[in-house]
Structures are given as structure tokens and as C-alpha cells.
């Protein structure tokens, strides 16, 4: 732990290195504006000392001070604005760099990383944590440094002027601090209660509103509203108390502050009477008292922010340190043609404790249509993961014709295949662009043709914006329809080898039949691999591979396997003969 923390900080700082000049400039500007800001009360005090009474005002001296003040003020404003601009550019620029690095790294990480880590977690690293870092850097660079500097310089200036009164200020300031802490501690409990009630209410609201149609169908609105009101009442109470308690911080610190101000006025007054101090000095002191307590409150906030930023940085670096997918393949280009796919003594498991695929041997001849069937978890999708090198086999060889897949660059290997998965990922973009995903320069005619082949053209035309409808996650397009678009995406430009993993699972049997016919046409002369749950779609396969527990149990055509009356025949009959 001890070794890790400085390294996170150092690493974060290394991101600032290219901007070293600006960082230094930022410190200089910050120091300058602190110095200049603190000069103002001194100048005001001095001016007051030249204003004594009727017929007793030194105009020449005042004019000189006034000119000086105007210059100082202008300089302060310029320093503040420039400093702010530079700090923004440093922190936002760092965030920008980190953010793109993270996303680029995501594309290089092995799929296994993405499969094993909750997506929400990765997302929060890439977005929330990086924002946290940029906030921390910004506040750190603007307020921490200038805050500490303000306190120190004020302290020195006050000490030089009057040690006794300084002592009073220094002794009393922590009181406001402690009071603020005390109030905050007590209100935190209420905030926690409020957060809990709010979370409960949000969960309730989310659950009921996402199923609002159901609530309507059952006519149970009154019951649901009553449930909402119950939690809402809870929240009302906690929310009132949390808001009230937390809002006590300002009045109490103001009270303490007023007391300090009064004390300075009293002691200062006596000092002036005792001629130990000028009236101008007193004015300067009162000005400092106003300035002195402010950075204290800010610094506590900044330190928390900074800690959050460091925690965020640690999480971001952890992600960036994940080892990328290895790519030792040398062959960067391979002719696109239909090839055989061979598994030769392949072993693989996701978890070393639970071997999945053991000594797996199979060859799918070039240009043939192979189907894989078997119960959930038997290793069907794993085969695809291995062919596409989303995962690497533990041992053994997988070859396209006689080229081991490991010899190919991953990008080139994947280029050889078109893939439709059960998981229907589509971009938040128009349907047109989604179909053209693999070839953004496709013409509309080609897109339309692909959609027709995927039986998607009909429903797309029924949408309010047709092909220009933007796909979102809100469920306006059903799972089956999403699947049809994914199929159209492949139909646009089918390579010589096809992989379909439960590609039609959400589509009704009639449409499925139509698409299967289209697929059959395309699969002519292409090597294809189909995983399907519904066995009706695979009857025409050249070879059916029945798998169980990572092993091949049977192999043959539909007719052969049915006649054999074994595992496949049982599977098939259980689907169609009951009822």
C-alpha cells in the first residue's frame, strides 16, 4: 500500500509532464494572484492612515496609493483569469488523454477481461473516475496551492503587524472549523438516511414505472400509488432533517466568524488607543480576518476531492495496466476464400478448475455447412470463441486449411468471418448506418437489399422514420427485430466464412424459415458454422455435431443421426413430439 500510493501520484504527475511549462506557469500565476490579493488590504489600510480628518488628508500620498491599487487590481484579475484558463486546459487535457487511452486500451484488452468484469464498473472507471481526476486536479491546482499560500502569507503579515491579535485569530479560527465538523458529522447520519430512503424510492419508482403498462392492465394504480406514498413520506422526513442539519454549517461558522471579528475589533481598538497600532492597520487586520478563515473551509473540501481523485486514478491505472491481447501472428494478409476449419487436440477451459473442452478434434470441410447442437453450457459458443480467438486455446491447434489461427494477426483472422450472435449489439445510430457497419460506404440500394434478404425491410418501413430511425435502448425495436438488423448487417457483405450463434433465437418460426432459406442460398459454397437451439433450422446442414460437456457425442447428417436414435434423436424428439 505504502509503495503504491506515491506511484499513483507520480504516474498521474507524469501525465502533466508534456504540459510542464503550463504547470509552472499556473503556480507562478497562482502565487502572484495571492500576493496581489493580499496587498489590497495593506494598501487600503495605508490609505486610511492618510485620511485623518477635516483639513487633514494627504492627497498626494493617497493618489500614489490609489494608482498602485488600480494596477494591483488589474494585475490580479488578469492573473486569475489566465490561471483559470491554464488550469482548465491542464486538467481537461489530462482527462481527455486518459479517456482516449482507456478506450483505445479497451479495444486491445482480451475479451475475457470484458467478460469477467461488470461493464458498469469499467464504464465508471472510464467516465466517472476520470472526471473525478480532472476535478481533483483542477481544484488541487487552483485552490490547494493558493489556499495554503494565502494562509501562510496572511499569518506572516499579521504576525509582523501585531503578534497578540494574530494569536487571537489563530486560536479562534479552529473553533469554527470544529463547529463545522461537528455539524457535518451529525448531518451525515441524516444524509445517509435520506440516501437510503431516496434509493428505496428510486428502486420502487423504477420497478413500477418500467412495468407501468402491467400496472395499468391490472388496474392496481391505487395500490401502487399508496406504496409510493409510504416511502415518499419516509423520504420527506429524512430529507427535511438532512437539509436542515446540513444548512446549520453556514450560520454557525458565521457566528464564530462574527465573534472573531468582534474580538479583533476590540483588541485592535485598544491597541489603537494605546498607540501600538494605526487605524489603517486595524482596517487591514479586519480585512485579513475576513480572508483568513475562507481558505480553511476550502482546503478541507479540496483534500477530500484530491483523495477521491487519487482513488479514481488508481482505478483508471489498474485498468490501463491490464495486459492487452497478445498478437504474435505474423500473417497480416490472407486471401479471402472459403477454407476448412480444423480443431486438432484442442484443450480449453475458462476456469482451470473446471476443464471444458478436452482433446477436441473435428474438421469442418471447406464450403460445407456445419451445425452444433447440445444443451446449454456444452461448449458450443466456446468453439466460436476459440475460432475467432476471443479466447486462446490452452493447447492444441485450430487451423484454417493448413494455417494455424495463431499465425494470423487477429484482425486478419476475424476479417475472414462474418458473425451473427445471440447478443444483438447495435450502435446508437440510424438503422441505415447499423446495417452498413462493416462497410460504411455501402450505397442505399445495397443496404435495402441486405435488409430485404434478412426479412427486415418490412418492419423497418413501418417505423416512423424508416431506415433513418435511430436505434436506442428504449425497447421501441423488439429483440427479434434487432436480430433481423444484425443479420442484415452480415448480409450486406458476407465473407467466405459465416458463424451464426443462436442468430434467430428471438424470431418467430415463419420468419426464421424465410431467413434460413436466404442463409442457405448465401451459404452455398461458403464454410459456415451454426449454433441453434431450435433444431428445425439446422436440418439441412451437411454435418451436425452434437456436443455434451465439451465433448463431441455424435456427428452426421440429420437423417443419419435420427436413424441412429441416439443423443440427437432424443434432443430432437423432446422438442417436437411432446404435446
Amino acid at each position, binding site marked *: 500500500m505504502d509503495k503504491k500510493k506515491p506511484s499513483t501520484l507520480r504516474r498521474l504527475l507524469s501525465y502533466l509532464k508534456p504540459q510542464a511549462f503550463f504547470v509552472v506557469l499556473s503556480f507562478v500565476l497562482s502565487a502572484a494572484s495571492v500576493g496581489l490579493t493580499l496587498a489590497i488590504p495593506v494598501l487600503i489600510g495605508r490609505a486610511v492612515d492618510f485620511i485623518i480628518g*477635516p483639513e487633514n*488628508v494627504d492627497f498626494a500620498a493617497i493618489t500614489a496609493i*490609489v494608482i498602485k491599487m488600480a494596477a494591483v487590481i488589474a494585475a490580479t484579475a488578469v492573473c486569475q483569469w489566465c490561471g483559470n484558463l491554464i488550469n482548465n486546459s491542464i486538467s481537461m487535457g489530462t482527462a481527455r488523454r486518459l479517456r482516449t487511452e482507456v478506450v483505445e486500451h479497451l479495444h486491445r484488452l482480451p475479451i475475457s477481461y470484458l467478460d469477467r468484469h461488470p461493464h458498469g464498473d469499467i464504464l465508471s472507471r472510464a467516465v466517472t473516475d476520470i472526471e473525478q481526476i480532472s476535478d481533483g486536479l483542477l481544484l488541487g491546482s487552483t485552490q490547494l496551492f493558493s489556499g495554503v499560500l494565502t494562509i501562510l502569507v496572511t499569518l506572516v503579515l499579521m504576525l509582523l503587524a501585531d503578534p497578540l491579535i494574530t494569536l487571537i485569530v489563530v486560536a479562534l479560527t479552529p473553533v469554527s472549523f470544529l463547529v463545522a465538523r461537528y455539524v457535518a458529522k451529525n448531518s451525515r447520519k441524516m444524509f445517509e438516511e435520506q440516501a437510503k430512503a431516496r434509493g428505496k424510492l428510486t428502486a420502487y419508482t423504477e420497478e413500477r414505472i418500467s412495468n407501468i403498462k402491467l400496472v*395499468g392492465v391490472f388496474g392496481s394504480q391505487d395500490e401502487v400509488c399508496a406504496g409510493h406514498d409510504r416511502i415518499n413520506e419516509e*423520504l420527506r422526513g429524512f430529507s427535511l432533517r438532512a437539509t436542515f442539519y446540513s444548512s446549520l454549517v453556514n450560520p454557525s461558522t458565521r457566528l464564530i466568524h462574527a465573534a472573531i471579528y468582534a474580538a479583533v475589533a476590540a483588541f485592535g481598538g485598544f491597541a489603537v488607543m494605546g498607540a501600538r497600532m494605526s487605524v489603517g492597520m486595524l482596517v487591514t487586520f479586519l480585512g485579513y480576518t475576513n480572508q483568513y478563515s475562507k481558505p480553511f473551509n476550502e482546503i478541507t473540501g479540496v483534500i477530500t476531492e484530491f483523495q477521491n481523485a487519487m482513488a479514481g486514478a488508481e482505478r483508471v491505472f489498474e485498468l490501463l495496466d491490464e495486459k492487452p491481447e497478445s498478437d504474435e501472428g505474423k500473417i497480416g494478409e490472407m486471401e479471402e476464400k472459403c477454407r476448412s476449419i480444423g480443431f486438432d487436440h484442442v484443450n480449453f477451459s475458462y476456469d482451470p478448475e473446471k476443464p471444458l473442452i478436452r482433446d477436441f478434434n473435428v474438421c469442418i470441410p471447406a464450403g460445407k455447412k456445419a451445425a452444433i447442437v447440445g444443451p446449454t453450457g456444452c461448449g458450443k459458443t466456446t468453439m466460436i470463441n476459440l475460432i475467432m480467438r476471443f479466447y486462446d486455446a490452452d493447447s492444441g491447434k485450430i487451423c484454417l486449411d493448413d494455417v494455424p489461427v495463431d499465425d494470423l494477426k487477429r484482425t486478419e483472422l476475424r476479417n475472414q468471418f462474418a458473425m451473427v450472435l445471440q447478443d444483438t449489439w447495435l450502435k446508437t445510430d440510424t438503422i441505415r448506418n447499423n446495417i452498413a457497419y462493416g462497410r460504411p460506404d455501402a450505397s442505399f440500394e445495397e443496404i435495402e437489399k441486405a435488409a430485404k434478404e434478412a426479412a427486415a425491410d418490412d418492419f423497418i418501413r*413501418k417505423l416512423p422514420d424508416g431506415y433513418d430511425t435511430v436505434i436506442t435502448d428504449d425497447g421501441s425495436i423488439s429483440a427479434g427485430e434487432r436480430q433481423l438488423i444484425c443479420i442484415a448487417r452480415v448480409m450486406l457483405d458476407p465473407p467466405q466464412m459465416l458463424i451464426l450463434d443462436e442468430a434467430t433465437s428471438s424470431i418467430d418460426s415463419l420468419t426464421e424459415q424465410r431467413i434460413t432459406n436466404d442463409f442457405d442460398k448465401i451459404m452455398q459454397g461458403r464454410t459456415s458454422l451454426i449454433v441453434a437451439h431450435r433444431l428445425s433450422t439446422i436440418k439441412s446442414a451437411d454435418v451436425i455435431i452434437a456436443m455434451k460437456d465439451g465433448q463431441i457425442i455424435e456427428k452426421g447428417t440429420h437423417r443419419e443421426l435420427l436413424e441412429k436414435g441416439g443423443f440427437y434423436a432424443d434432443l430432437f424428439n423432446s422438442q417436437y413430439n411432446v404435446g
Partner: protein
Amino acid sequence: MKLLGKYIRKYAKESILAPVFKMLEALFELLIPVIVARIIDTDIGLGGSAVIKDVILMIVLGLVGFVSAVSAQYFAAKSAACTGADIRSDLFRHINTLSYKEIDSVGTSVLITRMTSDVNQLQNAVNMFLRLFLRAPIIVIGSTAAACIIGKKTNLLFGITVPGLFALVFLILALSMPLNSKVQQVLEKITLSVKENISGARVIRAFGRQNAEAKEFRERSGELYKRQLAFGAVSGLLNPFAYAVINLAIVGIIYIGGGEVYEGVLTRGTVVALVNYMSQILLELIKLANLIIIESRGLASLKRINELFEIKNSLADGDQEICPEEPAAVCFDRVSFSYGENAAPAVSDVSFSILPGQTVGLIGNTGSGKTTLVNLLLRNYEAGEGSITVDGIPVKKIRRSVLQSAAAVVPQKAALFSGTLRANLSMGREISDEEAWQALSTAQAKGFVEEKGEGLGLRIEEGGSNLSGGQKQRLTIARALVRNSGLLILDDSSSALDFATEAALRKALKEDPKDRTTIIISQRISSIKDADKIIVMDGGKTAGIGTHSELLSGCPVYREIYETQEGTNG
């Protein structure tokens, strides 16, 4: 604003007292510079006791200010928390009165945001408004007024500086707020991008689009950076400008004030008081700027909430009654409907009738209009053309609550709510244990519920995550059965059941002593082939109506479906 007024009026006492107390606090604060001036001008000349008296006065003022501030905070918190809670409650009720059409056009995720973050934002804005909207102006105006009473020639200076600063603050805010909302928009896009880059990893790699995606992201990230800098450059003007203006004004006070002290119009202490008033104005103006930002966010939320309140259920409620427990007669006569104005019709020219007590099957492919027919029957959407009647009365004229209790629906998506099994079955009505168990038994759910050993008290997690798909589906069937309605609609609700369970369910439904009309929607021939009547839907039109054997010989669409499913047996 009118909307908010309605709610705040309920807490009028708190909403008035909060700013009044806040105002008192501000007034006490305004007295401080006057006292400091007196200390400098006269007390120091008079001696120690005078100084101490004034210092004690300062502390007393501080205490009184503290008490008023605390009262103000309490009233503000109360008014805000209560207003927020009331709006939340009413909004939730309102959302529950909307029809499907309105829900679709708004979208459930938006509804949820309105209910949660928008109401919270508004509550915060009310709170801060009550606390600050009088304080800041009072300090600013009060300081100006006090300064004008004290000063003479300096009045002009205050007269120019204060309105000038106000204008400056508003100008900068007006310029920077649109820039900030642009930043937020781009940030949302960035989040979406990352999300898609993670979830689409397989597809992106399969299409070899990593570089294209990374490039797109770099561009978005660059856009965010530019927008953030633009916002920072403009909003960053506020502090330096306000600082410069106020301090230059202070310079002016010293210069002009010095002259007046020379002439004996002002004293030294009053010049200091004038300087102090000017500094106070600066602090309050910065607070005011923050308040304006919070308020503008609150106003935006208020506007969105208001828009939601203004969406009314477009379907007027009917006033006629039917008997909800008797088996229903249903008649569709030349019904057409489309989801949007430009969209192709989802169903067109559909006519059929169902006699009381009949079991009817609805079959057809994805998007053929089966579920739409049910939605029209339940008047979740209003048919565009044609008429739909239940027991001879058009559904438009039947009271909505009566229609809802006359039809028990098992929807496609087997959704359950977190809570007990009993609460999920009853959905807010009174049901006896006997009724509940009877329904569970018919729905083939009794066995696994008993196995779990918790009876009707069985806890169901959010979304039914502690049950399997088939179990959830059986519970949703039981939930419909327990309503004892005259019309049961099963919308593709046995898809997660294995064939044996489905057969047992069909048998139990047939033997159920309750006399009811049943509509079964399915993609499986086996689920509906024993129905009294089968309606075949194809592309929003009826392709055939009849019994299984009639359709097999007379309806090509039906035969095709049959062949894809059953023709494989040999």
C-alpha cells in the same frame, strides 16, 4: 411557475417565514460596518468601556443573526422537502393515469428521470431560493442604501457599480449557461460511446472496426475538451471581473471619500464603513451567481415536470358498466390501427367475434399484430377505425376500471414485483388463501411454491430474479387467474414452459370450473390447435379464421406455420 406556486402555497407559512428570517439576519449583518465606523471615529476617543460596549453589541447582533438564520433554514428545509414530496406523489399518480400512447411517446426511462432527479433538483432549488433569494438582494441593496445614507459624492459610485455588476453577472451567466448545457450533452454522448465500446467488443472486433471506433471516440473526446475550455473561459471571467470592479470601486471610495473627509463631510470611520459595504456586496454577488445557476437548473426541471403534468390521457373514460365476472363476448368489426401517423398500419381491417365461454387462439409471426389486437381490446390504445365491443358495448364507452377488472392478462414479459408472492398475486385486491392456492394449482405453480416452503409469504426479488423464467411465467398466469375475470388473455405466455408443463396447464385450464372466455396468443401450433376458433394473423390482416382442421386445408399461411413446426416429425 404556476405549478410550483400551487404546491408552495400549501406551505405558505414556512415559505414566507424563511425569507423573512433570512432578511432579519441580513439586516443585522448590515449594522456591523456602522459599528466598526463608530469604534474608529468615536469610541477610540472615548476610551475602553465604549469600545467594549460596541464589541458586545457586535456579538449580540451575531447571536441574534444566528437564531434568525437557523429559523430560516428550518422553514426553508421544511417547505422544500414537503413541496418535493408532494410533487413526487402527485406526479407518480399522474403518470399512472396515462395511456400506452403517452407512455410510449415519453418513454419509461424519461418518466423515471422526471420522478427522481428532476424532482430532487427542483427541491434543492426551492430550498436555496427560499434561503438566498432575499438575503443576497437585501445585503446588496441594504449595503448600497446604507452607503448612500452615510456618503454623499460616493453615492454615484455605488449607483454605477452595483447595477453594473448585476449586469455583468447576468451577462456572463447568460453566455456561459448554454455552453455548459453543451458540455453536458457531449458528456452524455461520451458515456454512451464508452458503454457501446464495451458491450459491443465482440462485434466491433469481428468487423475489425476497433480503429474506427477509437477514432470516433477521440473526436468526441476532443469535442468535449473544446467545449469544456470554452465554458471555462467564459464562466472564468466572472470572478476576476467582479473582483476588479468592486476593488476599483473601493479605490474610488478612498479617493472621493478622502476628499470629503478633507472637507469634513465624512469621517475616517465612515470611509472604512463604505469600503466594508462594497466588499460585502462582492461576496453576496458571487453567492447570487451560484444561486442563479441552481435556480436555472431548477427551473429547467420544473419545466420538464410541468410538461409531463400537461400530458393528459388522450382517451376519455367511458361510463358504462359490464359484469366483469361473466364470460365476455368480444367483437372486432373492421378494426384498423397504426402506432404513428406516418407508420404503416399495424393491423388493418380486422373483423372477428368471440362468443362467451369460447377459447380462441391467435397465431401469426413477429409483428403480425397479435399483441396489438389485445392492446386495442383493452383500450390501451384506441382503434383508429372500426369498432370493438365487449358484451355488445363499445370499449370506448366502458368505464376503464371495469374493463380492466373484466380482463385478466398474462403479458409476454413475465414481470413480477419485489415483495411477497401474495402481494404479487393480489395486486392490491383482497384475496383469500384458498383462491390463491387454487390459482397456483391451475397455473402449475403449486408444486414449486410448496417446495420453497414459504407458502404465500415467499419473497420475490426485484424483477423476480430468484425464480427461473418458467416459474415466473407460471406465477404471472396464477396472478391472472386469481382475478376471477370473465376474459382471460394469455399473450405468448407459455414460451418458457417445457412441453409437458404446457400440456398440463392447458388441461387444467380446460377443467377449471370457472366459466370464462379465453384468448391464447402463441407462435406454437400445439398451444392453440384445440381452440374453438383460431385466428391467423399475417402482416396486420386476418389470413384465416376457423378450427385447426379447417385452417389446415383452407389457409396457406397456417399450413406453412404448421409445416415449419410439425412437418419435421418424420
